[in-house]
Each structure stands twice: as C-alpha cells, then as structure tokens.
C-alpha cells in the first residue's frame, strides 16, 4: 500500500504533476478575489472563509479527473488490480496520495492567503483547522467520482457534476467554522465538518473500488 501511495505522491510532485497546478490555482483565486471585491476589509473578512473553501474544493477537483484515468489509459490499473493489494486498499492509497499532494499543501498555504482577506488570527486558525479536517473529505468524495468516470473520455466535464453536490456540506460547514471564530457565536460547524469528513473517508474506498471494478469489466 505504501508503495502505491509513495509512487502517486511522487508522480503528482514531478513536472507535469497535479500538485503545483492545484496550488497555483488556489493562490490565483485567492489573490484575484480581493482585487475584484475592493479594499473593504470588514467585508473581505466576512466572505474570506467561504471564498477560500470554494477555491480549495475547485483546486482539489482539478487534480481529480486523472486520479484513475491516467493509470487506466497506460495499462497500470490492470496491473494494480491484479496485485496482492485489494482494490479497496488501492483506492485508499490513491485517495491518501491525492490528499497529500493537494489537500495538505492547500491547507498549509491557507493562513497566508487568509491574511489577504483581512482575517483576524483566530479566523486564520479556524480556516486552517477546518481545511485540515475537511479536505480529506474532498479527496474521498472526489475519488468516488474519479472511479465512476475513469473510462469516460473528457470525464473532466462530468466529474464536477457528480462530486460538487456531494461536497456542498463540506463547504457549508467549513465556511461556517470560520464565521464562528469571527462572530464568537458557537454554531457547531467544525464538529459537523469532522463527522462528515470521517464518514466520507471511511466509506469512500469501498464505493471507489466498486466503481473501478465496474469500469474495468466493461
């Protein structure tokens, strides 16, 4: 399992990999939005959490459509499917690699970008923690979509339609957690986000493996 995880992280980090693409997209959006909204810091701080969460989800999605498709096209997926590793374990390894290559770097960069939105220190902390807790759910839900669309040419068009509705709770609770820190009114968003993320991570490998199995047999 660690062999597959290590290989996927390496591939994502190399030239032509998806890790830098996602990070650049995230930073680009977070830089452009304050320029478009204007310099009203109070207003920027209100929307900061929501905008950064939406940007993080879209950035992670950029790297998702190749999660299984690249291995499917060059024949690696057949060889991986026949290895001693079960498809469930392979799906979990590839999902974890996607998170390490996109979700984790986005999370680490987020406090810096939060400053551009004038978020106070406890807002920055809430943003960081909510992304740390919530981005695994983005990779987990996304993997199911990537598994379903792996044999579809131009699957990148269908993937967001499948995955984005499933990720609405993560965006709502994630942005809610930042607002909780700003308003100092407890709303329980972080707990709900953690529960959602946990359920997504536990169930995703099974759903993803079922989707991949379906596609390999066709």
């Amino acid at each position, binding site marked *: 399992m660690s062999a597959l995880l290590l290989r996927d992280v390496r591939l994502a980090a190399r*030239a032509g990999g998806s890790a830098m693409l996602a990070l650049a997209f995230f930073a680009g959006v977070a830089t452009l939005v304050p320029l478009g909204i204007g310099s009203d810091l109070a207003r920027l701080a209100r929307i900061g959490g929501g905008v950064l969460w939406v940007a993080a989800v879209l950035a992670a999605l950029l790297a998702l459509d190749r999660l299984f498709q690249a291995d499917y096209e*060059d*024949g690696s997926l057949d060889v991986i499917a026949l*290895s001693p590793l079960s498809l469930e374990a392979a799906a979990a390894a590839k999902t974890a690699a996607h998170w390490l290559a996109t979700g984790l770097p986005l999370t680490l960069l987020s406090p810096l970008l939060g400053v551009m939105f004038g978020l106070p220190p406890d807002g920055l902390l809430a943003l960081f923690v909510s992304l740390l807790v919530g981005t695994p759910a983005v990779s987990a839900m996304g993997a199911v979509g990537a598994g379903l669309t792996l044999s579809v040419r131009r699957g990148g068009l269908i993937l967001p339609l499948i995955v984005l509705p499933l990720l609405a709770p993560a965006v709502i609770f994630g942005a809610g957690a930042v607002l909780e820190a700003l308003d100092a009114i407890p709303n329980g968003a972080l707990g709900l986000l953690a529960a959602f993320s946990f359920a997504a991570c536990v169930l995703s490998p099974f759903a993803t493996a079922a989707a991949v199995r379906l596609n390999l047999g066709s």
Partner: protein
Amino acid sequence: MDAGQALAIEGPNGAGKTSLLRMLAGLLAPASGIIRIRIGGAEIEDGEERGKLAGWLGHADAVKPQMTVRETLSFFARLYGSAPAVDEALDRLGLARLADLPGQYLSAGQKKRVALARLALCARPLWLMDEPLAALDGAGKRVVADLVASHCTDGGIAIVATHEPLGLDCRRLVLA
C-alpha cells in the same frame, strides 16, 4: 492445461483473444460458464482470487512517462511483494543501459521490454500475455520465447494471444 505448458491463442482481429485473457485474469466477468483453476488441491473459481495468480502483460505497457525504468520496476516489485531483483530483470531484457531513463524517452519496443521485465519480476504462476511480440525486434522476439520457455520449465503456465508464431513448442487454440 497443466503446469509447464504454454498455449498460443490465435484468431482474426475481434475474435475475442483479449476478452478471453481479461476473463482469465478476472478483470472481466464471463457472460456464461465458469473458469476454474486447480492449484495445490484447491479449486479457484472466483475471479479476483484468480487474478492473484496471474501475471498480466496487456497491450498497454504500464510505463509512466515521468518515472525511470528502474523506478517503474521497483514500484511493481514492491506492489507485488516479490524480490526486488531489478538489475537481474533489466539484464535479462537487455535494458541495463536504459535503467535511469524516464519512460517518455523509450520507444514502443523498449516499453514492451520494460513490461516483460515487470512480468518476469512479479513471479506469478499464470502468465497472460496479449500480443507480447508487437513492436519487438528479432532479438526481442527470441527473448520472449526464452522467457516463456524458462517460465514453463519452472512449472508455470503461459497463455499468449498472438498473431505471429512464438518460436517455441506450444499448444494452439484458434478462435474463429
């Protein structure tokens, strides 16, 4: 088929050679009928269990453009839990010179050799090979014949879909 035998599957394009191999590997469920493997007194009918016995050489070579030949082979050796005898496999396929070259610089024939090295490295009893001779030069074709022959001598089974003669003694199955 018994241990130590090789089988060549022949037939025109679209006859179902690749589909048959995918069914044997458990990647594709047969529409009807069962595939049974007897090994050590046990009978295996489940597709995924059958897959754990199979070494797969598809028409796609599973070579990543960003990974060097050595990285590709050691990854698959680790994934299959087999001995990391990468240098030996490279030598056998005449790839020693290319070990540290990324996959994107390899020709089609060189990629096929990497896939063959992977097959030899992964140490599975049942080899399923789809057009192993495609894109190979004369020397490469002889290497394939040697590989299959030594695999069978070691008690393995090789089932090979091919359009060309393999250059060794084997049974033939012609799909119409």
